[in-house]
C-alpha cells in the first residue's frame, strides 16, 4: 500500500506502551472501525492465519467488551475482556483490558485518542499496566509469530536510532 503509515511504538514510562499511526481517512471512519464489531472483525487480528472470532462490544460507559482471537490452523484461542470507562465520539475511547489467561498481574487501561488534520487521522493509543513487570510481560506476549532473532531487524532498529 502506498499510503501505509508508519507505526511508532514507544514505552513513554516504565508502565506504559504507546503507539501512534496516521490513517488516510477522517476520524469518524476510524472511530467506527474501532467500535463497530462488524468492522473490527475485518481488521483487528494481527498476522494472517488469525481471526477475531468473537467481538461483543457495548460501547457505553460501564459497558462490557469481549474479544476472542483464534488461530485458524489449530484453533488456539486468546480472549480479552474489558469495561468501557469513557467514550467521546469520534475522538476518545478509554477502557480497561485484561486477557483471560493473563500472564501478567492486574488490569490495563487503554486510551485511544483520534486527532484529525486535513482529512488524515492520527491515532494515539496508550496502554497503562499496573506495574513494569506486567508491561514487560505483555511485550513478550503470545502475539509473537515465530520470531527468529533476525539480525537484519536489529540492524534496522539501530539504523533508526542513528
Amino acid at each position, binding site marked *: 500500500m502506498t499510503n501505509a503509515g508508519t*507505526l511508532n511504538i514507544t514505552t513513554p514510562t516504565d508502565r506504559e506502551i504507546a503507539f501512534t499511526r496516521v490513517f488516510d481517512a477522517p476520524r469518524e471512519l476510524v472511530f467506527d472501525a474501532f467500535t463497530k464489531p462488524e468492522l473490527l472483525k475485518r481488521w*483487528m487480528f494481527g498476522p494472517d492465519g488469525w481471526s477475531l472470532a468473537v467481538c461483543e462490544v457495548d*460501547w457505553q460507559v460501564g459497558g462490557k467488551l469481549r474479544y476472542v482471537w483464534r488461530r485458524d490452523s489449530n484453533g488456539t484461542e486468546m480472549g480479552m475482556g474489558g469495561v468501557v470507562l469513557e467514550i467521546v465520539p469520534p475522538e476518545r475511547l478509554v477502557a480497561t483490558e485484561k486477557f483471560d489467561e493473563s500472564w501478567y498481574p492486574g488490569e490495563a487501561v487503554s486510551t485511544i485518542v483520534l486527532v484529525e488534520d486535513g482529512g488524515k487521522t492520527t491515532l494515539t493509543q496508550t496502554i497503562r499496566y499496573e506495574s513494569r513487570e506486567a508491561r514487560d510481560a505483555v511485550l*513478550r506476549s503470545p502475539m509473537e509469530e515465530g520470531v527468529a532473532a533476525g539480525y537484519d531487524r536489529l540492524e534496522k532498529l539501530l539504523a533508526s536510532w542513528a
Partner: protein
Amino acid sequence: MQPSGYDPNSPGHLDATFAALADPTRRAILARLASGEASVLELAEPFAISQPAISKHLKVLERAGLISRGRDAQRRPCRLEARPLAEANEWLEGYRQFWEASFQRLDALLEEMKSQKKPQRTKRGDRR
C-alpha cells in the same frame, strides 16, 4: 565469552536492557558500535560530552550485557553484544507485527469506507 553481568536466565535482565536503552546517548553509542568496535576516545568524539561521561554510559551498557570491552589495556575497544538487544527487540517486534498487520488491513477497510460514505452519509449519534 559471556559479558559480565548478563545472565539470560535472570528475569531482571530485560529490565536492565530496557533501562540501558532508555537514554539517547547510549542508543547512539550502540548505533555507532553496530558498524564495528571502537575505543572510548573514538566513541566520545561525535558527542559534546566528556570522556568520563561516555565511560559512565559504557559502564551501564556493559552491565546490561549490551557491550563488551576488549582486554587490550590501552584501548579497551567496545564491541556490540547483539544478543540481549535482539531479544529486547524481539519482544517489541511481536507487538509491532500484530498491530502493523492489523493496521494495514484497516487502511484498506478505510479506503472502502471512504468510497461508500459518499453516496449515503452516516447519521451522527447512531452508534453502538
